[in-house]
């Protein structure tokens, strides 16, 4: 089963995604696919805490900041596992800016990302994708940010189209926009 989850920040998306992944995986193996690249000690300390908390819920952690389809490779999770990809937002950023952020964005990144996400969705037994909804504010962004936002929306829509369930979170409350709550 494929689940896509989006909504504003600090909304409980990850907590709900974990609950869903636990439910979908049952007795099977489950992996938290971390896409964020830690930049400082504060990041690393927070990540270590999260890894520990998730281990108690039976999650292995895979750190895959790029080439997301590799999560289901035999040396990583394998295709019979359940994957929680958190988040599509960070994955796209890493693919668009493989070096530093002041370099030009890789124009092929969005398509590569979409391809990888759809391959993982097809290969994995279960997958839960978490993204961020950043499309409803009154700001005229610079070209770089606008380009990123357009690309992220294209990934969101591609994932929503192949998902069995699409959930929008508002104030910690999940609303099913497609399918039903697992």
């Amino acid at each position: 089963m494929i689940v896509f989850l989006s909504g504003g920040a600090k909304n409980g998306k990850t907590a709900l995604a974990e609950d869903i992944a636990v439910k979908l995986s049952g007795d099977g193996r489950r992996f938290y696919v971390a896409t964020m690249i830690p930049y400082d000690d504060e990041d690393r300390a927070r990540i270590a805490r999260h890894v520990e908390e998730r281990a108690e819920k039976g999650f292995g952690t895979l750190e895959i900041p790029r080439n997301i389809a590799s999560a289901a490779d035999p040396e990583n999770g394998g295709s019979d596992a359940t994957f929680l990809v958190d988040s599509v937002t960070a994955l796209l950023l890493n693919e668009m800016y493989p070096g530093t952020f002041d370099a030009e964005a890789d124009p092929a990144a969005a398509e590569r990302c979409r391809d990888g996400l759809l391959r993982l969705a097809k290969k994995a037994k279960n997958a839960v994708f978490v993204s961020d909804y950043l499309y409803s504010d009154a700001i005229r962004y610079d070209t770089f940010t606008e380009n990123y936002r357009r690309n992220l929306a294209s990934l969101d829509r591609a994932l929503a189209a192949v998902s069995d369930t699409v959930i929008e979170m508002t104030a910690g409350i999940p609303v099913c926009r497609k399918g039903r709550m697992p």
Partner: protein
Amino acid sequence: MDFIIGGAYQGKLDCAKKRYSLTEGEIYTCTEADGIAFGARCIDRLEEFTLWCVRNDRDAVAIMKENRASWQDSVLICQDIFCGVVPMGADMRAWREATGRLANYLAAEADSVTRVFCGIEEKLK
């Protein structure tokens, strides 16, 4: 009139094209530079029209009311720009306010209101 609203890049125009079998020639796209023109079967990017209104000191709702006959059977599309932090710039605050007032007016006048989220349509009215 059918009113479609949703965040940026969510598939509002795709939804309109599919549902009303619109051709490219039937779609008018508002711009910050030129504002709006009436007569098309579908008017897209009303948030660009409201920005034109802010820049030119015009009232978007008043302009729509004056031209009601020309859009009352149309499909109107507006971006939802209402969920962010209060913008720092006065012109962006005015833009958000003008767009909100226009969206409320049009939603009240509309026969149907649809919200598009990640390409998924939701009927609000």
